[in-house]
């Protein structure tokens, strides 16, 4: 973590705050804290890239994995200059909302209250059998020149964390607590996926989906009630709350060669078709269904629950039997073909648009051992027979747009992926 340095924008915000304190409400540009950003709409030259955040892909914050895309996120106590930069936050198009490990957060953020007046808890569960348990708090989020104000985020607790109820068994039952740097391999997750909220309507109904909890004194591991939460109080995809550049994101990463790399640098660019640096260009729009799925077809079979997910670190598809690939001996759970093998898969959007995707898979054991310092690979794969899950290797050398549900873009309404 670095100390927060004051930018021009910060000084302007400070000026506004002072003006507000002094009662001088008519100062131009100080209509609200929310308008404090806005630099992104100026110029259009793109060189200042006030809508662009640097991504580094490497082994992660705990250097325990490969292909982990990370950014720095600035959070502030709402409406104040009390801010903090948190580095090494995973960029995830497969989730929505900002989640930060409590151990990384030093500024005082207020815990959100639920409709019963108790602290609002959340259990975020992931397909890999991990969970993140913690409180919902409110923070301003600054990403490059973009700002979202008073956003519900998750402050992730872990075993032994004090001041908040211990994880309920209905949350820990998903498997493994990922609420530490060593397990998460990041200081948090920045969910910039297809939706405005992390849960949506299923968490507004009674009984709600198993995500938000009434974390008052009665919440103990064996008995902690879920609670319905209105959409606006759920974790929010911060991009959808920006004043401009709020219809989605573009992830732009360089090509990675067949042997890999130590790390690569790229950009998380906000907005689709809103600036010169985020035009769709020749990208094809593949709309998703209401679940955020596209269809992949391979070898005559259809996989209608397929996803493009920057939070996945490989091509996850088929299984050992179907590919005839042996399992790796060292990099357990990955494919280890004797030679590099090409695949051509056809993706189909909900809008009927289709196109081929070509990629290669080589032995993770060979790749990892040939260059032990290499932590970025374009050609590693692992089994998952239920669908095609295009992880971060899919993004190398291929700009990928993720458009948010209900937001308009030059390519039509989200949700969609475009590449």
């Amino acid at each position: 973590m670095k100390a927060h340095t004051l930018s021009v924008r910060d000084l302007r915000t400070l000026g506004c705050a002072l003006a507000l304190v002094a009662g001088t409400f008519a100062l131009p540009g100080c209509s609200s804290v929310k308008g404090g950003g806005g630099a992104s709409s100026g110029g259009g030259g793109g060189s200042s890239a006030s809508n662009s955040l640097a991504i580094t892909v490497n082994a992660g914050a705990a250097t325990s994995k490969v292909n982990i895309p990370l950014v720095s996120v600035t959070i502030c106590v709402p409406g104040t200059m009390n801010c903090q930069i948190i580095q090494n936050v995973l960029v995830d198009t497969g989730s929505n909302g900002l989640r930060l490990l409590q151990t990384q957060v030093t500024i005082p953020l207020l815990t959100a209250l639920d409709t019963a007046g108790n602290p609002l808890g959340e259990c975020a569960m992931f397909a890999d059998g991990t969970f993140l348990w913690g409180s919902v708090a409110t923070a301003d989020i600054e990403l490059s020149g973009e700002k979202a104000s008073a956003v519900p985020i998750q402050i992730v607790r872990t075993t032994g964390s004090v001041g908040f109820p211990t994880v309920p068994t209905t949350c820990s039952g998903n498997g493994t607590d990922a609420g530490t740097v060593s397990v998460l391999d990041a200081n948090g997750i920045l969910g910039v996926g297809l939706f405005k909220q992390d849960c949506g309507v299923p968490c507004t109904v009674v009984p709600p989906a198993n995500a938000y909890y009434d974390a008052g004194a009665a919440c103990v591991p064996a008995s902690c009630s879920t609670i319905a939460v209105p959409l606006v109080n759920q974790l929010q995809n911060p991009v959808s709350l920006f004043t401009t550049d709020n219809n989605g994101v573009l992830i732009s990463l360089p090509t990675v060669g067949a042997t890999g790399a130590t790390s690569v640098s790229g950009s998380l660019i906000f907005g689709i078709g809103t600036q010169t640096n985020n035009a769709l260009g020749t990208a094809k729009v593949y709309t998703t269904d209401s679940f955020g799925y596209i269809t992949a077809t391979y070898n005559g079979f259809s996989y209608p629950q397929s996803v493009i997910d920057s939070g996945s670190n490989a091509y996850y598809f088929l299984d050992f039997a179907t590919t005839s690939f042996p399992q790796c001996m060292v990099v357990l759970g990955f494919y280890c073909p004797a030679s590099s093998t090409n695949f051509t898969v056809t993706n189909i959007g909900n809008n009927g648009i289709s196109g081929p995707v070509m990629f290669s898979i080589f032995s993770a054991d060979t790749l990892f051992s040939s260059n032990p310092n290499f932590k970025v690979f374009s050609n590693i794969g692992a089994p998952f027979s239920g669908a095609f899950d295009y992880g971060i290797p899919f993004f190398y050398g291929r700009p990928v747009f993720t458009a948010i549900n209900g937001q308009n873009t030059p390519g039509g309404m989200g949700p969609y992926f475009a590449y």
Partner: protein
Amino acid sequence: MRKILSFLLVLVFGAVPSWASLGLSEQSVHADQQRMAGQLKSATFNGFTVHEITGAGGMVVREYVSPVGTVFGVVWEGPTMPDLSQLLGPYFPKFQQAAANVRYRRGPLYVQDGPFVVESGGHMRAFRGRAYVTSLIPANLTKDVIR
């Protein structure tokens, strides 16, 4: 399979207290439906029975029971993940160990430990997965019925 299911489905609504975890008997555990506060439908096919619970927030769990009354497969789809410790029952520790072993993976899960297989995927708001024990699948069926 989907078409057959919808065609043959015999709906039995109500608090039928027969629910189970993977590998256990149909009668041994009654907790799932209560735990999910769910509505139960059951359907019998040639060689197996499917119990489907629709629970809070639209979570759907299907459990596949063999003629001898053993749960040989479970399927889930929903906006969040199900309680895998409940669904996988005696296989949950194996699941946790196998998931920990594949330490370089970050993404959907595919766990195989002998006859026990778990596939868990999707993304936030739309999860989907299944688990089965190949040695418990009736001889006239394949894992493809578990869907």
